[in-house]
C-alpha cells in the first residue's frame, strides 16, 4: 500500500491549494468559536493576554460549582485581580483594562452558559434530537458524545452505560435512514478501573459495558465509535476495542471504529497494529479509523516533564502536521479494508486528505470529514457544500459537563499554535495552506 505512493510521488500541492482556496471561499469571514460581537472581541483579548485568558478559563471552570450569583461574582473578581496583577508585573499590560473587564462581566452569568450551549446540542438525547435531525436534514451526519463527570465508581459507570443505551435507542427512533445513528463513547467513562500500569484492569472493567453497548448498537443498526484518550490509557482502549470486535458475535455488526492520534510519536506503529488487525479480521460492517491530532497535548507534555520522560507526543507543530498527512495517505491507501474519518478543523490537513483521496479515487463511501460542533460549523458547511461527506461530533450533557468541555475547547483553540486561532486572527489562506 505505502509502496505505491513512494513509486510515483504525486504532486499534491496544486490540488491542495485549489481545494483549500475553494473551501475557504465558502466560509464566512474567519472568526473563532462564536458569532456574537462581544464574544469575538473577548476571544481577541484572550489571545493577546495570557493572564486574562487564564482568568477566564478558571472562571468558566468553577462556574458550575458556584451556588449563588454572589459566589460567582466573588470568583470572577478574584481571578481578574490575579490576572491584573500578573499583567501589571509583565509591564506589557493590554490597553483599555476597564474595557477588558466589561466583556468579561458580560459573559459572566448567562454568557458563559450561552457559550457552552454553542458546543452542546442538548442536555440529553431527547433534548438534542431537534438539533441533530436538523443537521441530518441538511446532509450532515452526526456522532453524539455524552458528557459527564469522571467515573470513579462502578455505579457511575453503570449510569453512563445506561445513558449511552438510552441515547442509542432515542436516536434510532428518530433516524430516517440506516446508518444514521452514531455514538462516540469513552472507555474511561465505562469503568473506574483504568490504570496506566495495569491495562488489563481497565479492559476487564469496561468490557461488559462496552460489549453491551455493541450489542445495542448492532440491534438498532447504529455505529459505535470508541474515542481515544490520554496516552496512559491507549493500550487498554485499543486492546479492549479490538478484542471485542474480534468476537464472532460482532463479525456481522455493528459498524464500529477507533481513533488514531497523529501527535503521538509512535502513531505510525500504532497504525500498523490497527491495519494488521483489520486485515485479519473480516467484518461485514465497516471498521472506521478516525484520524485526529490529539486532544491531550498539554497534559502529555506536562506529565512527561514532571516525571522526567521523553514526551510521547511531537513537540514541533509542523512535525505533528506532517505526520497527520502521512497517516492520512496510509489510511486512504488502506481503504476499503478500513473506512477513514479525517477529524480536523485545519484547512491544510483537510485539503491534503481530500486531494490525496481524489488522486486515489477514494470517495464518500470510504472517506468522511469530521468536525466538532460549535468549533467547526463553518468548515462543516463548506465541506458539505463541495459534496464531500461530513460528520459533526455533537456533545450532549448538562451545564456542569458542558463547562468542562468548553474550557478544554477554548484552551485548545485560542492557543497560539492552533489553526483556528491563526485563521481567526486573519492569517491569509495561502499561508494557512502551505505544506507543514
Amino acid at each position, binding site marked *: 500500500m505505502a509502496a505505491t505512493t513512494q513509486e510515483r510521488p504525486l504532486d499534491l500541492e496544486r490540488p491542495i491549494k485549489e481545494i483549500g482556496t475553494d473551501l475557504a471561499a465558502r466560509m464566512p469571514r474567519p472568526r473563532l468559536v462564536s458569532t456574537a460581537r462581544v464574544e469575538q472581541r473577548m476571544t481577541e483579548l484572550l489571545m493577546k493576554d495570557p493572564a486574562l485568558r487564564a482568568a477566564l478559563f478558571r472562571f468558566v471552570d468553577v462556574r458550575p460549582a458556584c451556588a449563588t450569583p454572589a459566589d460567582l461574582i466573588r470568583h470572577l473578581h478574584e481571578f481578574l485581580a490575579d490576572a491584573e496583577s500578573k499583567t501589571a508585573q509583565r509591564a506589557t499590560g493590554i490597553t483599555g483594562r476597564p474595557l477588558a473587564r466589561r466583556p468579561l462581566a458580560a459573559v459572566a452569568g448567562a454568557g458563559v452558559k450561552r457559550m457552552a450551549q454553542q458546543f452542546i446540542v442538548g442536555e440529553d438525547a431527547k433534548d438534542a434530537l431537534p438539533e441533530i435531525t436538523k443537521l441530518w436534514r441538511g446532509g450532515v451526519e452526526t456522532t453524539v458524545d455524552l458528557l459527564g463527570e469522571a467515573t470513579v465508581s*462502578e455505579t457511575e459507570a453503570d449510569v453512563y452505560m445506561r445513558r449511552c443505551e438510552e441515547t442509542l435507542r432515542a436516536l434510532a427512533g428518530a433516524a430516517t435512514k440506516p446508518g444514521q445513528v452514531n455514538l462516540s463513547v469513552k472507555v474511561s467513562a465505562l469503568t473506574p478501573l483504568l490504570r496506566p*500500569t495495569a*491495562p488489563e*484492569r481497565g479492559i476487564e472493567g469496561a468490557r461488559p459495558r462496552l460489549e453491551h453497548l455493541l450489542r445495542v448498537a448492532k440491534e438498532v443498526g447504529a455505529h459505535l465509535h470508541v474515542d481515544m484518550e490520554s*496516552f496512559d490509557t491507549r*493500550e487498554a482502549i485499543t486492546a479492549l476495542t479490538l478484542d471485542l470486535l474480534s468476537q464472532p458475535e460482532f463479525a456481522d455488526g455493528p459498524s464500529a471504529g477507533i481513533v488514531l492520534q497523529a501527535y503521538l510519536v509512535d502513531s505510525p506503529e500504532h497504525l500498523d497494529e490497527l491495519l494488521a488487525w483489520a486485515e485479519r479480521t473480516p467484518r461485514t460492517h465497516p471498521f472506521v479509523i478516525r484520524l485526529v491530532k490529539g486532544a491531550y497535548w498539554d497534559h502529555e507534555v506536562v506529565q512527561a516533564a514532571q*516525571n*522526567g520522560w521523553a514526551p510521547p507526543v511531537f513537540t514541533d507543530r509542523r512535525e505533528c502536521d506532517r505526520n497527520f498527512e502521512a497517516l492520512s495517505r496510509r489510511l486512504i491507501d488502506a481503504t476499503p479494508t478500513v473506512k477513514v474519518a479525517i477529524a480536523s478543523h485545519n484547512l491544510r490537513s483537510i485539503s491534503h486528505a481530500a486531494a490525496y483521496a481524489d488522486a486515489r479515487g477514494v470517495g464518500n463511501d470510504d472517506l468522511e470529514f469530521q468536525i466538532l460542533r460549535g468549533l467547526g460549523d463553518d468548515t462543516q458547511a463548506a465541506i458539505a457544500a463541495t459534496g464531500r461527506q461530513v460528520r459533526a461530533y455533537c456533545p450532549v450533557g448538562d451545564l456542569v459537563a458542558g463547562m468542562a468541555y468548553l474550557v478544554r475547547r477554548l484552551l485548545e483553540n485560542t492557543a497560539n499554535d492552533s489553526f483556528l486561532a491563526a485563521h481567526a486572527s486573519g492569517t491569509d489562506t495561502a499561508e494557512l495552506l502551505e505544506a507543514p
Partner: protein
Amino acid sequence: MNTFRNEPLLELRRGTVRDEALAALSALDAKLPLDVPMLIGEDVVHGQVFASVDPSAPATVVANAHAATAQHVADAITAAERGQRTWSQRPASERAAALSRAAGILRSRRFELAALAVREAGKPWAEADGDVAEAIDFLEYYAQGALALDGGRPLIQMPGERNAMRYVARGITGVIAPWNFPLAIAAGMVSAALATGNAVILKPAEQAPACAKAVVDALHAGGVPLEALSFLPGGDEPGKALVADPRIHTIVFTGSCAAGLNILQTANTFVPGQRHIKKVIAEMGGKNAVIVDSDADLDDVVPGLLKSAFAFGGQKCSAASRALIHKAVADELAERLAGAISTLRVGPAADFATDVPPVIDIAAQQRIQGYIDSAKPLAQGDSRDDGFYVAPTLFQGLPTDHKVIQEEIFGPVLSLETVESVEHACELVDQSAFALTGGLFSRSPRTIEYVTERTPVGNLYVNREITGAMVGRQPFGGGRLSGTGPKAGGPDYLLQFVEARAVSENTVRHGLVV
C-alpha cells in the same frame, strides 16, 4: 552550578518497562534470602540473625540480617572517630564526587533495587521505583548542596580586617532510618551527613535492612571510606546505644512520634565525659488533613484523596487521614468516595494491578485493625489473608475526640468530617499537635491564600494529592510534634549538619593595610 535534575521515574505505563521490572524481580527472587551482615569500619561482622520477610507473602524471607548489640555500636563509633578525621579533611569536591558516583551505582541497579523494595517493604512498583529515584536524587542534590556550602557565606569587610565564615562538619552522626522509604530516607539522611564531612553510623529499620545495605554498599563503592560509614542492622538495642553514646554529635531520625521524643530526651541527657551538646534532627509523623471547599472540583478530589490516603496502604508520613469537607459538598463527596473505595484492588506489592498493598508487619496489621474495629465504617474495600493485609476503610462523622481522628494510624484509613466553612476546617487543623502535610481543594485564589497563611503544616498541597514530595521541588518536613523542622531535599537541610566558624584577621602591619 545548579544542574540538579530529578531522576526520571521508570515509565511503567509501557509494557516493555514492566517486563524489565518483572525480570529483575525474578532475578532477585533467585537470590533470596540475602545475607545482611554488620559493617563496622573495615570489618564485616556477623551476629545473631533476624529475618526480614515479604509483607505480601510472609513465609518468604527476603534477608537474614545480623543484629548489632550495644558493643557493636561502641566498636562502630570507635571506627567512626578515625573515619571522622579522614573524611572531614577530604575536599568537599571529593566527597561530592563520591556521593555522585554512589548515585550512579544506584542508577545502574535501578530495577533490581525497586524489586528489592517491592519484596522487603511491600511497596508497589511505582512507589518502589519512586523510592530508588528519590535515593538517587538525595545523593546528587546534597552532593551539589555541600559544594555550594563549602564556599562559606560573604561577610561585611572593613579596611584592615579580613572576615570569613565557613562551615565545618559537626562530628559523628548516628542515623536511625524508617522502613517506609527504605532506600530514599536512609540515603537522604546518610548522604546529607556525609556530604558535609561527617562520619556516619546507620541503624536501618528492622523490617528493611537489605534495602539500606544496598545504599551503604553503593556509597562505599563510590568512594566513602569504610570507617566513615558503618552499618548496624538490628532493633531497639543498637538504636538506643547509638543515641546514648557521648561520642555521637548528631542524631538523625525519621519515625514515630513516641520514638522521636524518646530520642530527644536521651540525647539531652548529659553523659560525663561528653564535650558537646548533641543535636537531634527528627521527622516524626503526622495526622494530615485535606480541606475540601464548596467550590472544589470533585472529579479531582476523589482520585486525589484515594491516592493520598490509600497508596502504599497509607504508610507515608505525608498520607492523608482526615478529610474536612465543606457541608455543601459533603454528601456528594462521601457517596462518591464510598463508591470509589471498592474499586481499589488490595493485593501483593509485586502485582502491577495492586492499588493497596499489605502493611509492613503483623504488629502494624493488628494495630490498624484495632482502629478499624473501633467504629462503624462508612465503606470498606477488600482484604485478604495471605499477607499483612488491611481493608482500606472510610469513616464518616466520628466525634472529634475519637482516636481515629486524633491519633496517627499509619494505615489505609480515611475519616471524613463535615465542616461549616474553610475557616472551621482551619481551626480543626490548628487544634492538632501535628503539623506535617496538609491539603486543600479550592478554586478560589483568596481561599488558597487564606489557608496558606493560616495552616501550621510544613507542606501544603493545593488541588493535588498530598504525598509524593520531590527532592528540590517540595522540600519536606513539618513542625509541632511532626519534627524538628528541617526540610529534607530543600536548600537549608545541610545546615543542620554543620557548624559555622568565623575567622577575623587583622591585616594591619605597622599602621599599613597589607
